[in-house]
């Protein structure tokens, strides 16, 4: 062997190699980003759409079907976006609660002593998970909620009326063939909420099932030999241990629910995404609208994550 081959060439030297690789990657990323940004700048200048936020103060000129904050067409764009964001938050919060309750029920049902109930819980999960959410939302809206009867034929329960014109709560009255009540939810909201709850509950049921299955069987047996009835065992012994596994899994399901709420546009609910789409079509401000949209969803995700991490800290095993 000659002495030449014993010297490691510089491009294979372990001291330089990482820097070489990173330098090459940085160069590629830098060139691509610079290329895209240059094009962006050129294209935006050519169309007179350079980044600006003053359009947010101009009157929106479109109306929203359903808002909590008072809104009309003369109010500025930022108010429209805000109203959309509030609508998104409304459906996300209601959806989180509903999906958690339904998911927990179905998840625990798969441990029932009743064989039929157990199998139905499995069938529910397998059917719902394998059908696209968008298809389910459209189904709920067009096939179920828009087919509801109106006026006198509406579905009436004490303190609650479900009609094509919406869900009415708190002593609804029929005035000239139109239902009126202190609390009204539109069918658009109802369809979106039902779809999100039914879909997410299937995933939460799997998380809950996995959590309960992770608790050793001996815990059930020990509790039952101490004379605990099954429901008390579940509440005081199994769930506290299962929650350690369940909470991290719930976190990702909650974030998916928040992101999935953007499909509201399929059932005509004016959420943040749907308002943004209208705003973009009217103003042409693609970059600004996208920044607001992505930023808002990022903040919602981060808030959910932070809350769930706090909850996780509470349920984890504390050791001295």
């Amino acid at each position, binding site marked *: 062997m000659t002495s030449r081959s014993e010297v490691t060439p510089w491009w294979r030297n372990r001291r330089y190699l990482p820097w070489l690789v990173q330098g090459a990657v940085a160069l590629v990323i830098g060139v691509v980003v610079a290329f895209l940004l240059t094009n962006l700048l050129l294209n935006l200048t050519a169309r007179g759409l350079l980044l600006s936020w003053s359009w947010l103060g101009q009157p929106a000129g479109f109306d929203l079907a359903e808002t909590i904050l008072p809104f009309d067409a003369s109010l500025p764009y930022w108010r429209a976006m805000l109203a959309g964001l509030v609508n998104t938050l409304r459906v996300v919060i209601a959806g989180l609660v509903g999906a958690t309750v339904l998911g927990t029920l179905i998840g625990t049902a798969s441990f029932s002593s009743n064989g039929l109930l157990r199998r139905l819980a499995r069938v529910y999960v397998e059917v719902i998970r394998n059908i696209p959410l968008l298809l389910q939302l459209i189904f709920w809206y067009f096939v179920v909620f828009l087919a509801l009867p109106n006026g006198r034929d509406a579905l009436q329960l004490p303190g609650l009326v479900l009609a094509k014109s919406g869900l009415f709560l708190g002593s609804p009255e029929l005035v000239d063939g139109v239902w009126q009540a202190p609390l009204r939810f539109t069918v658009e909201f109802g369809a979106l909420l039902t779809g999100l709850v039914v879909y997410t509950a299937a995933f939460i049921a799997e998380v809950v099932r996995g959590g309960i299955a992770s608790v050793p069987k001996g815990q059930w047996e020990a509790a039952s030999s101490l004379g605990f009835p099954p429901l008390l065992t579940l509440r005081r012994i199994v769930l506290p241990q299962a929650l350690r596994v369940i909470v991290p899994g719930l976190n990702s399901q909650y974030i998916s629910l928040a992101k999935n709420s953007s499909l509201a546009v399929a059932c005509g609910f004016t959420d943040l995404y749907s308002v943004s789409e209208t705003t973009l079509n009217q103003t042409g401000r693609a*970059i600004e609208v996208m920044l607001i949209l992505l930023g808002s969803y990022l903040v919602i995700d981060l808030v959910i994550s932070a809350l769930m991490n706090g909850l996780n800290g509470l349920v984890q095993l504390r050791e001295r």
Partner: protein
Amino acid sequence: MATTPPLVVRASPLRRLQKELFGSRLDGLISIALLAALLAAGLGFFRWALFQAQWAVLSANSTLFAVGRYPVEQQWRLWLLTTLLALATGFSWGLLRAFPGSGAGRALWPRNDRWAAAILVVLALWRPMALQLTIAIQVRWWGIAGLLLLARWAAGRYGPAIPQACRRLIPLLWPLLYLVGMVLISGGLGLVQVPPSEWGGLLLTVLMATFAILLCFPLGVLLALGRRSELPLLRWGSVIYIEFIRGAPLITLLFLGQNILGFLLPGGLSPDRVWRAAWVLTFFAAAYVAEAVRSGLVAVPAGQLEAARSLGLPVPLALVHVVLPQALRVALPATVGQFITLLQDTTLLSLIGLLDLLGTARTVMANPMFLGKNAEVYLVLAILFWSCCAALGLGSRALETRLNPHSPSAPQA
């Protein structure tokens, strides 16, 4: 002390059913309530499906649902492609069965296969008839199903006679077929061009899903490796990309692709709307696949890479030959789960105005002739998506047992 097998008393099926459903008084009540509800729902559904539903909306639009507005005079290309696909499927199916490792032994038609063949025959005979297709098209479907079964039989019978060297080349059939398929669908090489705006229905859905699945997998593996790399730039680059994509809803990214990609590229270079959506789907799914693969990489002990390095393997080779095979096996269920999600996510294309299956359904629903036939169409779409996703899930589980080195049915290397 001689061990005796545990005494297992197998109760009669009726006895077991009674114990399952009527074990206690509460269970009995629940069972009766559930049975009554199921019976009522089942009866109501059958009454609707048989007497009220008008399935004509499907037969009247069957071509639209299948291929969208693909020009009629060019549709022979799609028939040719379907035939090739059927042949390749039958061929691969037969070969999988001809070699042990599937645990099914060497029987030419194991029981599962007989079931699959029977279902295929029933579908091929009944489906075209139920859709009231013309007799010429019905015959074509019979022919395609027959060819599939013939290829299955031939490969199962004569497959073992193929020399070893040729057998290794057989998996290459599929990528080759994919390329042939792309040429057949889009044109070129002497065929008339059919622009993507004329693709639609099932054709577009399948094309988008397969394109994104094929490309997002290598991208996802690279991102996962990047995220676990020791080089800070690679690691942080991958982390930022993955978390950015996972923080945004897909619909906003598709929207971004439609509205902003045009600004980012020099004028006229921006691809067609369909391809823009396909790339967004790919880049979106890659971030999720990366997380699935990462869970597999975590499961491989660090000693594996260290052992490979100490044997003198450079890092890239150690990753490809030692770490990735183990990691991907662990990550398989999660990865296929992402593919299933991706298939479902193709429905979002309908929200940005593309005519995939759901988009086609929405345009058909907008036609005054078919007003109020929502339930029929969406039910069939749901069954279609459900079958595809459930089949992918089943396939993934079968592959999992086949690849598991500890399972008794694993091939002996």
